[in-house]
């Protein structure tokens, strides 16, 4: 199992001149430490207008800063909103190629379509067509990265033959992923040979079923890229403390802050009746956890909050249900002081990671 970081870059009010800079600086320091400690990847989302929840509209810039100050950690640009009003596909191909070059071939590309009215209406995008535009974009991207000349005539965009440069550094191209919040999207990922970048928390039993179906479907896929990225990633909170009770309590404060902010988002489905957004994604779960019976000080099922032993047990369960990677949210609204976040990372690397290094070595040996 591989471990990574996952950034929404939440900035609490009141917003001062320095508050956003502090959040970015803290995140960069965390990434540098994570690189030294052996974390495998850092992901940054693309969100717009999501007050306090995410001040991360230009993840490629943040990730470039990450890449320039680290040596090994991979940089996950995701999700890139594959809706023409947000991002032109040529620009996606170009900027991801540059990031792959600058990072020395450490890029991972996550794709998605946005789920909030706040963002889609802000860009004047049509919620009814985002799934179709996403599908078109993910089929074009690998070709734009790899073909010397590229021309395209599609429903959402077209271009005459041009040489899209530069080309990605990795060969044949960076691994591609799909953001998965709503049940069923993991099958869209599987059918296209894309990795499942899960953005939901907890609940082993449900995830196990979904992962099993993903694994079955991806065996039958028609890949959109030049290789199949048969990997399942999930997101989790991380707060690791020597004292289990302290770790759970502090971690839960962070998780509750995140859930409360997320529950303020105006989903498409809340305001716009459309079959293209059949579920509320992770919002109902987060709302329950923000105010419901799960909102106590105890860590919920599968959350990496508490002492090293508890976290190791939770992550072993994730490994057993078939998760390949776990990406951690380290903070929300800066409720955990930076020094404690860094210490949590160090403790996790010292006490938890070795348990998974052994598994990795054993798996390699068996192969």
């Amino acid at each position, binding site marked *: 199992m591989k471990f990574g970081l996952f950034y929404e870059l939440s900035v*609490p*009010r009141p917003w001062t001149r320095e508050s956003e800079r502090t959040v970015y600086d803290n995140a960069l320091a965390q990434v540098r430490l994570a690189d030294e400690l052996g974390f495998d990847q850092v992901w940054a989302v693309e969100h717009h*207008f*999501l*007050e*306090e929840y995410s001040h991360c509209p230009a993840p490629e810039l943040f990730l470039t800063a990450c890449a320039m100050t680290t040596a090994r950690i991979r940089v996950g640009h995701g999700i890139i909103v594959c809706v023409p009003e947000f991002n032109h596909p040529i620009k996606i191909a170009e900027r991801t190629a540059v990031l792959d070059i600058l990072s020395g071939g450490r890029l991972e590309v996550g794709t998605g379509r946005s789920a909030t*009215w*706040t963002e889609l*209406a802000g860009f004047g995008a049509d919620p009814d067509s985002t799934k179709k535009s996403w599908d078109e974009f993910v089929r074009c991207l690998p070709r734009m990265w790899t073909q010397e000349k590229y021309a395209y005539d599609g429903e959402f965009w077209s271009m005459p033959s041009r040489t899209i440069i530069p080309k990605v550094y990795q060969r044949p191209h960076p691994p591609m992923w799909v953001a998965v919040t709503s049940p069923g999207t993991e099958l869209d990922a599987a059918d296209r040979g894309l990795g499942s970048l899960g953005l939901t928390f907890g609940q082993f039993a449900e995830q196990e079923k979904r992962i099993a179906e993903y694994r079955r479907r991806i065996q039958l896929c028609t890949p959109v890229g030049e290789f199949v990225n048969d990997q399942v990633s999930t997101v989790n909170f991380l707060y690791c403390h020597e004292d289990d009770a302290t770790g759970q309590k502090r971690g839960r404060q962070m998780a509750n802050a995140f*859930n*409360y*902010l997320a*529950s*303020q*988002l*105006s989903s498409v*489905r*809340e*305001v*716009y*009746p*459309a*079959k293209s957004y*059949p579920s*509320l994604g992770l919002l109902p779960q*987060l*709302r329950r956890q*923000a*105010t419901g019976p799960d909102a106590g000080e105890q860590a919920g099922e599968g959350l990496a909050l508490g002492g090293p032993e508890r976290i190791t047990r939770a992550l072993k369960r994730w490994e057993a249900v078939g998760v390949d990677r776990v990406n951690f949210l380290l903070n929300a*609204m800066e409720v955990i002081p930076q020094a404690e976040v860094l210490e949590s990372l160090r403790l996790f690397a010292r006490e938890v990671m070795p348990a998974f290094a052994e598994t990795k070595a054993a798996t390699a040996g068996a192969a």
Partner: protein
Amino acid sequence: MPLYGQLELAPIAARLARLRDLDTEAWSLPRAEILQLACEVGDETRDLLPRAMHPAVPPYATWVVVSYPESPIGPFKLAQLRLMGRAGAHPRGYVLGAIASTPAAVTALRERWGFPAELGAIAIRRYHDRVMAEVAREGQPILEAALVDPELISGADIQYIHSVTLATAPDGESTAPRLVQVDPHYVFHKAERGRPALGRFDRPAWNAACLSPLHPMSASFATCDTDLPRIRFVMDVELPVIQGTRRIR
């Protein structure tokens, strides 16, 4: 933390509905027709939202006009203007103004669920290319709203957000302004969506002088079995609902 509403209670306290008690019986309301329009509104609407609630991002309002062909008090119609927000983590529509079409409905809605209902005339008309609602009070039109170019959708595609009313309500030994959650159920028979068209909108008549419709969002029209349920939650109007909510049943 997210922003909170900024409603000053004193200027509106005198006109609040007064609940008899919190033991309201549920009403079953079959075959209701519901026209709902949603539109983004300006940030100044924070002044209309109770301090217990967070404004939606972006701020938006819904205009909801309903025909109830059957009810314990006979057929009636109800039109509401709701400012959408969050009660803690949950989306809720705070009822700014309401018009009911019969005196019995006005009385029942005020005394049982705390709606700020006043008597008026309400019409819902279906044309070949639109569903239109007209509301008048004291003979003066105060709302014209339409769903244009209806297309059939599944009822499962519609998410109706629960309401909260602000009313003077008894609870234990005290009687005070409280937020009352009204959370109906819906079983859909037919649903359509279309383009929202808001014509006449007399803002003061809906207790919303500072509410300006800005960016149209959606319109839906549905036929469904619904209810006005027993009251389950009341909330302190000044405290964040996460601290000030009391479960009644």
